[in-house]
């Protein structure tokens, strides 16, 4: 039970229409999945645009990861609608003053104009090669994927590379928009003091970046071990370093948000204090800030500052990545569920019980977290990202070279 006496001057009063939560765990997963997409893409863009050659081995894996998760991102959203059959109206008759109405467009833009196009340019040479070594229906499948562009001359590959680079440049603000916008959906509501913050889109974006980097880091570790290849420790160190810097920014902003709220101490301070010292205590301070933030930050700092062996560093990166993923999931939970646990009367708290089964239960959520991994597995089978493409001398000049 919560220490309700903290609301000293009032009884626990929840508006009668607020007895149940409107947005369930599905809406926790939606910003989580979208964030992983944006983060994975931004890691990939480091290679492409910023020429961060050391993280090149993760480049194509990061792109496919972004695609697999992007395909799944709208599933929790659409499933949660009261009338999923009307979902298309969000795009056909959008109400432009609504932040949510823009989702369909941002999503489609990102999927069609950025990710698919970039992946196509990047894997086209591989696809052409596949058409040469396969037969029958598989060959037709790969031929279809090339869209008939089978020219792999040096000039054509250079064009692919240039186009890919251009798309990435467009893609960075698009990824920022995709996830910043998700934060805006929450941050722009003046009805809810837990959400209403100009920092919300920025915090969402930074937590997206740390989660995306962590995910690709883990996938890189797992797939390399699974394929019995040698881990590129230089790559891991570089990814770890990016993760550390992103985490510093992320935690700084989250800290600023907390300090600002405590110092400003508006009319909501009692009920929000009650919330974060009660129902959300473990998920905020335990999971989000300590296990998912400070602890991995400490580990990452240790890998950078100490002379730890490669094996130790690898383990620390893996643990940090896992913890950050957990912490960001907790952050999404704290925002989405936390923002609905207090009444807009600011005089009372309600509760949320996560069911095991059912459309909005734990099992359905786990399925939604596993589904993109399955899709990624299929994608990796179709177009293996362990690219020879970047390493080949005839590939475009700006292409990533594994180090």
């Amino acid at each position, binding site marked *: 039970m919560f220490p309700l006496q903290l609301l000293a001057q009032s009884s626990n009063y929840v508006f009668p229409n607020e*007895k149940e939560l409107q947005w369930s765990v599905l809406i926790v997963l939606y910003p989580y999945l979208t964030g992983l997409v944006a983060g994975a893409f931004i890691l990939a863009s480091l290679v492409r645009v910023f020429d961060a050659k050391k993280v090149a081995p993760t480049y194509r894996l990061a792109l496919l990861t972004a695609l697999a998760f992007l395909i799944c991102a709208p599933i929790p959203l659409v499933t949660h609608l009261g009338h999923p059959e009307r979902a298309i109206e969000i795009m056909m008759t959008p109400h432009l003053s*609504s932040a*949510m109405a823009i989702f369909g467009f941002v999503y489609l833009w990102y999927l069609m104009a950025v990710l698919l196009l970039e992946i196509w340019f990047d894997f086209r040479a591989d696809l052409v090669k596949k058409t040469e070594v396969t037969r029958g229906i598989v060959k037709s499948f790969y031929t279809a994927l090339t869209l008939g562009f089978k020219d792999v001359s040096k000039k054509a590959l250079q064009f692919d590379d240039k186009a890919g680079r251009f798309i990435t440049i467009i893609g960075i603000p698009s990824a920022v928009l995709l996830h910043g916008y998700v934060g805006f959906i929450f941050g722009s509501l003046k009805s809810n003091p837990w959400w209403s913050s100009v920092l919300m889109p920025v915090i969402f974006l930074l937590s997206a970046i740390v989660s995306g980097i962590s995910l690709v880091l883990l996938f890189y570790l797992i797939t390399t071990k699974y394929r019995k290849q040698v881990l590129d420790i230089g790559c891991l160190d570089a990814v770890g370093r990016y993760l550390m810097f992103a985490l510093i920014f992320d935690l700084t902003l989250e800290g600023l948000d907390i300090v600002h709220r405590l110092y400003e101490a508006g009319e909501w301070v009692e009920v929000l204090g009650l919330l974060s010292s009660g129902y959300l205590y473990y998920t905020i301070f335990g999971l989000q800030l300590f296990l998912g933030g400070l602890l991995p930050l400490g580990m990452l700092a240790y890998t950078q500052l100490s002379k730890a062996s490669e094996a130790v560093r690898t383990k620390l990166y893996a643990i940090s990545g896992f913890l950050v993923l957990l912490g960001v999931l907790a952050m999404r939970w704290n925002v989405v569920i936390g*923002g609905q646990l207090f009444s807009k009367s600011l005089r009372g708290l309600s509760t949320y019980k996560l069911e095991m089964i059912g459309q909005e239960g734990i099992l359905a959520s786990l399925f939604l977290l596993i589904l993109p991994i399955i899709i990624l597995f299929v994608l990796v089978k179709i177009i293996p990202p362990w690219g020879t493409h970047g390493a080949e001398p005839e590939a475009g000049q700006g292409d990533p070279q594994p180090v």
Partner: protein
Amino acid sequence: MEENEKLITRSDLLKTIGQSVILIGVGAGGYAAWSNVTSKIAKKTTKRTATGYPASPWYAMAIDIEKCIGCGSCVQACSVENDVPEGHFRTWIERYVIKEDGSVDISSPDGGIHGFPEVSDENVTRAFFVPKLCNHCDDSPCTQVCPVGATFETSDGVVMVDYDWCVGCRYCIQACPYGSRFWNEKKRTADKCTLCYHRIKKGQVPACVEVCPTGARIFGDISDKESPVAKFVRENATNVMKPHLKTGAKVQYKGLSKEVV
């Protein structure tokens, strides 16, 4: 790690940041400018009535808190008239009991539909009832956030939900600062008070106003100087709920005490 290998060159970084900023800036600026222009055109072309309202009729409600006895008739009438699902409320009554030690006991058992139990505590300095309903805000946050425009304000100032258009995303329920909206499981859409639009368009008053035994609810066309609601608002000091949120709430309260949430 090699010292001479820069992960990011400065010019690349600047270039990309520059391009990103320009792209985002152009997009956001364009959208903001467009909305600004369209809203200004809309405001300019909206003629105001002689009494200063956007249209006539312009429906509003006033509530005289001192007159409410918390009998629950309005909640019952609303529930029957509008087939409101059990456990949800288009209108409800709150009771505030202020004790000698300054604490406030707020309650609304079943939305006050069956009235309220007697107060047993003797250390009560003051108690009163506050009927609540949708404020039919002129700048309503719920209308703003609806992704498909299923929530809208009618030309006579009533905020409504088009149940055949609502996708059921519940964003409007989150955006309402007053807890006036609820999820209708039967319709699988958002739901709320309509000011009994089906009645008022026939010249009747909303069900809650009709049954109130003490006349605590005053309804009418506020753009008409002679209407009871215009008169009431003119002659009494009134206020709206959460005025700092600037939602343009149309339900005005006389005797609104600071304890009211």
